[in-house]
């Protein structure tokens, strides 16, 4: 093998436009599952709290889904969602997010102290206002903790999609492997980890903004 530096900066410079478009694709494919996951998990989580009986079956189904390897699910979805489309990657990731977010919503609502709920009732809150103004805000830390896990996992899982033709930055791994060339692989790993760190930091920031009282009390 030729003597080569581990990272060739000139390659990065020359290929930046294509790296950028892969990055954008990656962001979309990992962001959509998190947002859709949250939008679906909130009502489902509420339903699981309201009707305790459906929680166990829902979670069993989610655990089974979560245990399926992503590559296998991508492959099985190809006839439905098409080859190398965003949907092939996004749909399974929505389900992985749900497996993390539904219990987060249920546990979050479970973390509301009973005396707080009773005070809200005594103060004349209607059930809907109590949910929106009291229970959900108290549930925020637990829900956001779940969201952080879901976000970071989605961002890293998208790259597996490269094996079925659509994996955002994951393409750089395939490219680097086929040419035995380190630079794209390292760029890909660094960008994926960086994206995950940024998403995580934004969610931590969101939690600080959404729950100012936890800071005032000195607990995070």
């Amino acid at each position: 093998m030729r003597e080569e530096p581990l990272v060739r900066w000139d390659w990065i410079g020359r290929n930046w436009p294509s790296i950028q478009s892969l990055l954008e694709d990656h962001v979309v494919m990992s962001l959509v599952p998190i947002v859709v996951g949250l939008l679906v998990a909130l009502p489902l989580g509420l339903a699981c709290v309201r009707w305790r009986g459906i929680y166990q079956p829902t979670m069993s189904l989610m655990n089974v889904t979560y245990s399926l390897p992503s590559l296998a699910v991508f492959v099985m979805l190809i006839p439905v969602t098409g080859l190398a489309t965003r949907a092939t990657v996004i749909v399974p990731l929505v389900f992985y997010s749900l497996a993390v977010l539904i219990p987060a919503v249920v546990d979050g609502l479970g973390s509301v102290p009973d005396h707080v709920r009773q005070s809200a009732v005594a103060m004349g809150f209607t059930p809907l206002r109590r949910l929106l103004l009291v229970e959900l805000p108290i549930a925020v830390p637990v829900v956001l903790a779940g969201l952080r896990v879901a976000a970071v996992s989605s961002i890293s899982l998208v790259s597996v999609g490269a094996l079925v033709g659509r994996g955002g930055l994951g393409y750089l791994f395939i490219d680097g492997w086929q040419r035995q060339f380190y630079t794209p692989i390292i760029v890909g790993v660094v960008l994926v980890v960086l994206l995950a760190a940024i998403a995580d930091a934004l969610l931590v920031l969101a939690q600080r903004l959404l729950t100012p009282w936890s800071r005032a009390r000195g607990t995070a």
Partner: protein
Amino acid sequence: MNWLVDFFGDPANWSGPDGIPVRLTEHLQFSTVALLLAMLVALPLGLWIGHTGRGALLVVLSANAARALPTLGLLVLVVLLAGLSTDLPVLIPLVALAVPPILVNTYEGVRGVDPDLRDAAYGMGLRGGQVLGRVLVPVALPLILLGLRLAAIQVVATATVAAFVGLGGLGRYVVDGFATNDYPRTLGGAVLVALLALLVQLVFVLIQRLLVSPGVRRRNAVR
């Protein structure tokens, strides 16, 4: 469904070095070795950190790293750096990704044991090691097993992806089928991998039923 009949109905797929029995055995062997190595590292470490409370930061960092690192990138990078001569380099990322779920859940399991229970054990005259072995581990067992289950699932999935860098196992069908536009082969491999993952899940549920004391309440896993 026709695709599946094409793949599973072909007698050529049931024998020889690329037959389903051989590929399944490879997959199981590799996954088992990786899981055992990961257990060897993560179980003692998790028990020790949970018991002593020292090094908790390590647990958090490893969990975050394992979630953020892209499997495919890690595999490609490690195997390129280490060379392709044997299958050993592939074991490195496989084990590295299996350690954190075991470590985190073992740690959380031991740490989350009711302090009153721990104090009662000390009060009865048990020493540190005995408290760990007779009280903390049995009570933490549901979470420890959940960690092992998540790690096993992770290993089976990563071993599939590792076919891309030349590892045997069921992932071969997925990768080779994709490379040769043989969708029945790819799909057949994917179905086998999914079935294997479900089987692993089932085995762990059974182990849980057998080993966990009925008096121990189930707590939540850390993904």
